[in-house]
């Protein structure tokens, strides 16, 4: 029991836990849409395109999350706009934008003297989260949950039947745009906790695990959120006791839940159901 609780008596571990749980909640709620609307690639791209924003913010001494947010929202707008025009296939456009922006970020950062910040951005550093960061993370997660709640029926409908949605005046493009903006905000908060490279994992893995268990949208969200919270706690414990990076440990925990659920489902299936 001590092994489980003792680490969280430390103030920096409490802040880290709060940050990881909040980020996990935001990511997993949105993740249900990401998985079922097949937006995983977009999520990954949004994470990568924040790099130049972070780099510019770092070099000019502005808040890193502000730089990331600006870059992320800008990319969301761009992707939304490009997929509307359909000049290029959407995944192609995203592929170009995200590698290009990421390369730009690397080039800008190479002008900086230190590489320590690059590692933090790429792999996350949840132990460095401050109370101020915590407020902004909480704000984003709260906003995501609120918008998903308010627009639940519209987001649900445009996800599975965009034609009917358009015919009743709902404009699937508009709602996709809302999702992209929420996604970019969430991704920025996730970068602080698990890093840019692994952000997609928090979006996809808990929601995918939930989709193995339930076939209802609202329940999927609840299950995914629960799994993300568990993964956050388990990952931080692993990180504390075995001295491994927290972000990677959280992602590993989430992946382990997925594998365990998939195996359990298979076993139930074979044992005569």
């Amino acid at each position, binding site marked *: 029991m001590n092994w489980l609780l003792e680490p969280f008596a430390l103030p920096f571990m409490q802040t880290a836990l709060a940050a990881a749980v909040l980020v996990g909640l935001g990511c997993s709620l949105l993740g249900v849409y990401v998985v079922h609307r097949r937006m995983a690639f977009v999520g990954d791209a949004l994470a990568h395109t924040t790099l130049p924003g972070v780099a510019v913010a770092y070099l000019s001494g502005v808040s890193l999350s502000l730089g990331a947010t600006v870059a992320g929202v800008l990319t969301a707008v761009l992707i939304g706009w490009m997929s509307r025009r359909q000049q290029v296939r959407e995944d192609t456009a995203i592929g170009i934008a995200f590698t290009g922006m990421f390369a730009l970020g690397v080039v800008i950062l190479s002008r900086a003297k230190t590489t320590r910040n690059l590692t933090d951005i790429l792999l996350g550093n949840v132990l460095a989260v401050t109370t101020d960061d915590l407020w902004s993370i909480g704000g984003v997660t709260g906003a995501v949950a609120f918008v998903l709640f308010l627009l639940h*029926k*519209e987001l649900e409908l445009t996800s599975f039947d965009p034609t009917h949605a*358009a*015919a*009743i*005046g*709902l404009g699937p493009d508009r709602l996709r745009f809302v999702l992209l903006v929420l996604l970019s905000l969430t991704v920025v908060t996730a970068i602080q906790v698990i890093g840019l490279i692994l952000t997609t994992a928090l979006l996809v893995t808990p929601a995918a695990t939930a989709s193995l268990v*339930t076939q209802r949208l609202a329940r999927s969200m609840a299950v995914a959120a629960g799994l993300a919270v568990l993964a956050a706690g388990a990952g931080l414990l692993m990180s504390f006791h075995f001295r491994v990076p927290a972000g990677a440990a959280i992602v590993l925990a989430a992946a382990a839940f997925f594998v365990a659920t998939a195996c359990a489902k298979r076993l139930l299936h074979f044992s005569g159901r």
Partner: protein
Amino acid sequence: MTAFHTHRNPYLPYGGREHAHPYLFAAALAVENLTAGYPNAPKPAVRNVSFDIPEGTLAALVGPNGAGKSTILKAVAGLIPFHSGSINVFGLPPGGCHHRTAYLPQRGEIDWRFPVTVERLVLTGRYVHLGWLRWPGRKDYDVVRRTLNRLGLESLAHRQIAELSGGQQQRALVARALVQGADLLLLDEPFNNLDAETRADLLTLFAELRDAKKTLVIATHDFDRPNDVFDQVVRLHGGCRQIEPVPE
């Protein structure tokens, strides 16, 4: 090649506040000299097509693939803009009466694996009346339950939509149109990939709806002799109305 000029998409208000009343005695659907097509297409898919469909008719739009059947239905539903001519639904242009118009997409256009139940799919028919920030209430759920009963879907209400057969999926879409309270149903290839028995069942249902004063316009290429089945047949070929010989 340059895309032909199109008007903007018609404005379709979401939510019940701006719904207009239909004109009395107007045809359910009146299409006049319609030229329409997808905005980015090099040329219109439909050229100068005219026809009227009175209320309470089971009508078919027939013709080979690419004849413009879907284009006409989508233009009527306000999903694509039209170049010239006019469309009137119960005397109003597209968007004026869209709460009384239901477009039932081809089944392939819906993501059937999305985690929603049959009940929730049918419930989405109420959304055009609810609008932003209003949750469906008990009355809405009551309408859904009654309609599911009427179409023999009550036992499937809590199934995920992918568990339905093709015929049941089509029935669920019809249920949604009825829950919406639509009087004009535009059905895009509802008989696709259905066996003969299911097709016959579906046709019986459509005839019942017609008898209940609904107007159905069905795009289809599944019937060898559509005139035996439908009250009215509009034949299209290469985007133009084909005038058929008067039957003996």
